[in-house]
């Protein structure tokens, strides 16, 4: 596709985040500020050295502020700077860094701040009031739907197609919540959680049970992206963005094959192609796929071409995706363990790869000096795939 010819390299040189909490006292502006300040302090940069800002934040109706991006701009360091807001639902956390990437790769800017924020707790009585817009207003919403329906039906189809049992899927929740016990910002980390805990949790919308789902969360994540000549000067070990990919499928979700995310595969191929990755199973050392539900990690691992269709559950059962396994998946603890502030969750995964590839993930560190990782996010009306390949 010609993207291999992009010559200007871009690296992530700093990252910051707030704790992911159920209800933050901070306003949305303050959440953005806390994450952004941490990211800037990390690489000793001042606002005057930032050329532009890309902001990723999900529906205005969550925070309840119309034109939310502009409202949050000052908290994201964008005062009197070129500023872009982008949004593809949950896919935003990886989509915003992609936008930041081409701001720098194009040669137009040298240093770009990427800030992702969500304050879902403002949406009362429940953020589902806003989420329900995922269903068509005329042909679906009159049925009185619940957001859980759409995931439960996708999960059911996936289980049915490959003959899976709940245990095969629940193992992902156990792995991620245990991993998250080592993440200082996590909401639901639990070092002692067992498979029985997940299987015995209350059924919300069969086959989805309470511990299969990540919760409503508030939080913000910020990243500093820099062009090569700046990155090499200010950062001892820049983490390069080697490939980007994004893809959108139809919103006629009832017309789609629900057991395979083709849009994730398309985005992954775009990113792998650009990164020169021809054998992802060998060349990718860490994967952070989007896991708002436990079955989605499996779904997305297959879409990322890291396992054959229907085979990701088996790999999980064999321990391949544990932190010390052959292909660690969600060593951060993922959304299931750390939390799910819609636009910021994917950015948390990008930040995780930044720390992992630099050997700075502390208790979460994947052994063996990993060199390449893939982060993937998903969302919008259930049909976007966004992928980033990073490496050192």
């Amino acid at each position, binding site marked *: 596709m010609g993207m291999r010819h992009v010559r200007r390299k871009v690296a992530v040189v700093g990252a910051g985040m707030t704790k992911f909490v159920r*209800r*933050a*006292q*901070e*306003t949305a*502006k*303050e959440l953005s*500020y806390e994450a*952004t*300040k941490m990211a*800037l302090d990390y690489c000793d940069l*001042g*606002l005057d050295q930032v050329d532009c800002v890309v902001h990723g934040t999900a529906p205005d*109706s969550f*925070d*309840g502020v119309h034109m939310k991006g502009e409202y949050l701009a*000052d*908290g994201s*360091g964008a*005062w009197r700077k070129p500023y872009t807001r982008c949004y593809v639902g949950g896919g935003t956390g990886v989509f915003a860094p992609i936008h930041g990437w081409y701001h720098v790769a194009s040669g137009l800017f040298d240093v770009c701040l990427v800030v992702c924020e969500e304050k879902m*707790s*403002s*949406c*009362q*009585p429940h953020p589902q*009031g*806003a989420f*329900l*817009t995922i269903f068509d*207003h*005329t042909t679906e*919403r*009159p049925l009185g739907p619940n957001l859980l329906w759409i995931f439960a039906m996708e999960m059911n189809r996936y289980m049915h197609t490959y003959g899976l049992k709940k245990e095969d899927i629940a193992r992902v929740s156990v792995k991620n919540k245990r991993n998250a016990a080592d993440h200082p910002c996590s909401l639901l980390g639990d070092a002692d959680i067992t498979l029985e805990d997940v299987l015995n949790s209350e059924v919300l919308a069969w086959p989805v049970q309470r511990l299969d789902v990540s919760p409503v969360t508030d939080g913000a994540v910020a990243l500093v992206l820099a062009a090569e000549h700046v990155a090499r000067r200010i950062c001892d070990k820049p983490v390069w963005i080697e490939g980007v990919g994004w893809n959108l499928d139809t919103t006629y979700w009832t017309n789609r094959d629900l057991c395979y995310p083709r849009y994730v595969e398309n985005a992954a191929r775009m990113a792998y192609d650009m990164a020169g990755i021809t054998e992802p199973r060998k060349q990718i050392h860490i994967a952070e796929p989007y896991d708002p539900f436990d079955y989605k990690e499996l779904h997305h691992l297959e879409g990322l071409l890291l396992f054959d269709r229907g085979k990701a559950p088996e790999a999980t059962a064999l321990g391949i995706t544990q932190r010390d396994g052959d292909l660690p998946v969600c060593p951060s603890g993922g959304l299931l363990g750390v939390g799910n502030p819609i636009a910021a969750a994917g950015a948390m995964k990008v930040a995780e790869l930044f720390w992992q590839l630099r050997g700075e993930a502390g208790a979460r560190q994947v052994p063996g000096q990993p060199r390449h990782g893939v982060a993937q996010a998903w969302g919008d009306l259930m049909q976007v795939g966004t992928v980033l390949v990073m490496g050192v």
Partner: protein
Amino acid sequence: MAILEKVDKMHQAVAWQGDIPITSRYTAGIAGEKFFRALKDEGRFLGTRCDTCDLVYVPATMFCERCFAQLDEWVDVPSTGHLFTFTVLFRDLDDQALEVPRVLAYVKLDGCDGGLVHYLGEIDDTELYIGLEVEAVFKDPANREGSILDVKYFRPVVD
């Protein structure tokens, strides 16, 4: 033959009605908590000061938007100021005529670089102009809630 028909009878033009059922709950925030508590409990305004930029923000903010410093210095701000700009409102949000027109103003408070948007009151015999000196009128302490409405309105300063 492709479908490119238009609706030709009015009754065929259907609109499906519905709503997005949410109420928004906004925390005052870290800085806002302190600002609005001072308003509620003490009937006064607070600002935060950025030394580097030599600015005092009102309403108080947690950070300076220009240099990105965290602001820890809180200062008292007078409840007097002047009309920076104003408008006279004749209709409400639903485009219904107001019985009595209302005046909305941006009051630049003294001693800081910010101000407040609020209504003006006690202005029946006043000629309004940009620069007019005004002062805040607060509700009784018992009726204050930690809201911007703890200020009833701004009124012209009478010498």
